[in-house]
C-alpha cells in the first residue's frame, strides 16, 4: 500500500557458526551463516540469545564486524572475565554450532558511502569492531572519502584486526594512528598515552572540514574523545557515539 511503512518484526534466527578467528588473546571473531539475513549497514549490531538446557536464556547485543558486502556475517566478541555470555562466545562456541540472533539493529551509528566525509573513526579497545565494518564497507564500495582511524589500546597485543589495519594503512587507503596507553614496544613511533585534547587536535581534521566522527569504546573513553572534539570546535551534531559500559558481557 503506497505510503504505508511496513514494519516487519525482526525474528530470531539460528545462524550456523562456520568459522572463528582469534584476533587477540581476549577477542574472537565468529563467522556466521544466518539463514535469512536481510542485509545491514556498517555500524549496526545484533542481539544474540543463548539458551541453556533447562530453558534459561541470556541475551546481549554485539556490533557487526563485517561489511554489508562481505560473504558472511561476522561478530567480534571480547571476553569479559566476569561476563555471562562473552566467555561462552569466545571460548566455547565452535564451528557447526548454532547461534541465535536477531537483527540488524540500530540506524544511527552507521556510515554509508553516500554520507560522505571526511571520516574520523575513534576507537577504544573492542570499540573498533563497528568501525572496522565501516572500513570494510569503504573499501568494498571503493569510496574516495578520506578516512582516519585513531585506535587506542593498552598494548600492541590488544590491537584487533592488526594485520588488516596495517594493510589498509600500507595501501594508503586510510590513515591509521595508534596510541598504546600501557606499554609500547621498543622504537614505537605511535602515541603512547591516553587520548587528550592535544592528541585529538593532531589527529583530527580542522573543524572547518566538518568531518563525520564515529567514536566507539568504553564509556569514559568515548566521553573524553567527544568532549575534547567539541572543545576543539567540532560541531556536536557531527559526532556520533556508541559506548559500552563496565558490564555488558
Amino acid at each position: 500500500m503506497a505510503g504505508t511503512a511496513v514494519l516487519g518484526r525482526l525474528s530470531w534466527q539460528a545462524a550456523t557458526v562456520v568459522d572463528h578467528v582469534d584476533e587477540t588473546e581476549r577477542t574472537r571473531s565468529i563467522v556466521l551463516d544466518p539463514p535469512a539475513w536481510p542485509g545491514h549497514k556498517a555500524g549496526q549490531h545484533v542481539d544474540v540469545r543463548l539458551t541453556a538446557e533447562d530453558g534459561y536464556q541470556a541475551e546481549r547485543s554485539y556490533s557487526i564486524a563485517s561489511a554489508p558486502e562481505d560473504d558472511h556475517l561476522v561478530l567480534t566478541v571480547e571476553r569479559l572475565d566476569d561476563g555471562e555470555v562473552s566467555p561462552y562466545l569466545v571460548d566455547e562456541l565452535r564451528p557447526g554450532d548454532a547461534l541465535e540472533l536477531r537483527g540488524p539493529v540500530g540506524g544511527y551509528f552507521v556510515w554509508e558511502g553516500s554520507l560522505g566525509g571526511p571520516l574520523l573513526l575513534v576507537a577504544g579497545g573492542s570499540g573498533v569492531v563497528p568501525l572496522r565494518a565501516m572500513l570494510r564497507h569503504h573499501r568494498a564500495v571503493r569510496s574516495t572519502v578520506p578516512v582516519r582511524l585513531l585506535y587506542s589500546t593498552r598494548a600492541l597485543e590488544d590491537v584487533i584486526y592488526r594485520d588488516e589495519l596495517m594493510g589498509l594503512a600500507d595501501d594508503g587507503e586510510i590513515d591509521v594512528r595508534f596510541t598504546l596507553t600501557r606499554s609500547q614496544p621498543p622504537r614505537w613511533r605511535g602515541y603512547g598515552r591516553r587520548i587528550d585534547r592535544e592528541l585529538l587536535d593532531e589527529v583530527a581534521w580542522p573543524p572547518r572540514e566538518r568531518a563525520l566522527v564515529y567514536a566507539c569504546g568504553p564509556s569514559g573513553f568515548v566521553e573524553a574523545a567527544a568532549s575534547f572534539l567539541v572543545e576543539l570546535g567540532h560541531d556536536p551534531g557531527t559526532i556520533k557515539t556508541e559506548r559500552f559500559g563496565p558490564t555488558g558481557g
Partner: protein
Amino acid sequence: MTPISRGFQGRRRTDVEAARVPPGQYVTDDFPVLSAGPTPHTPLPEWSFTIRGAVDEPRSWSWDELRSLPSETVTVDIHCVTKWSKLDTTWTGVSVDALLDGVDTSAEYVTAWSDGGYTTNLPLEDVTEGRAWVAFAYDDEPLEPEHGGPARLLVPHLYFWKSAKWVRGLELRNEDEPGFWESYGYNNYGDPWQEQRYWGD
C-alpha cells in the same frame, strides 16, 4: 524452535527476584551509559524547562524555579533496551503532574526534547498520574552530566531511552511523532514487559 546452546550453563542471579526482570534483560549493579553524541553542558543560569505545543500558553521554569517546586523521591527499577536492568534506583525530581497542573490541553501525545537535539515521544497518559518525573538527583546526589544532568525525564515503566537525558521541555501534541531512536528502528512505545525493543515488536 529455539536451539539449545551446547555447553551453555548461564549464571542465574539468585539474589534477584525473577518477576522483577523483564524478558531478555539481565540485572546489573553498574550504571552503564547510552548516548548518541557528546554530553551537553548547559550552565544552570541558562537552563530552563518549558511546556509548549498544544497548550493555551507555554509555561517555563528557571532552574531555581523548578527546584523550588515540591519534589518527590522515588525508588524504581529501570530497564535499558541494550539489555541491562537496574533495580531499586532512587531518584528525586518534580512529578510531571505538578508541571502540567492546570494545563488545559486536548493533546494525547508528548515529545520530550533535550539539549543536543534528542527527542522521544510518549502518550501523554504515560507521563501523568504519578508515572513520570523531571529528575535532578540520583541517590541523593546531583545527577551527573553523563547520566543526563542537570535533569532528565524519568519514565521507569518504559525502556530507558524514553527517560530523555538533558531534558529541557515537553511539547504537547495532538498527533504522535516518532522521536530520535523511534526513527532509527526502535519501538514507538517501548514496554519492557512486552519486549517492545524494535520496530514491529
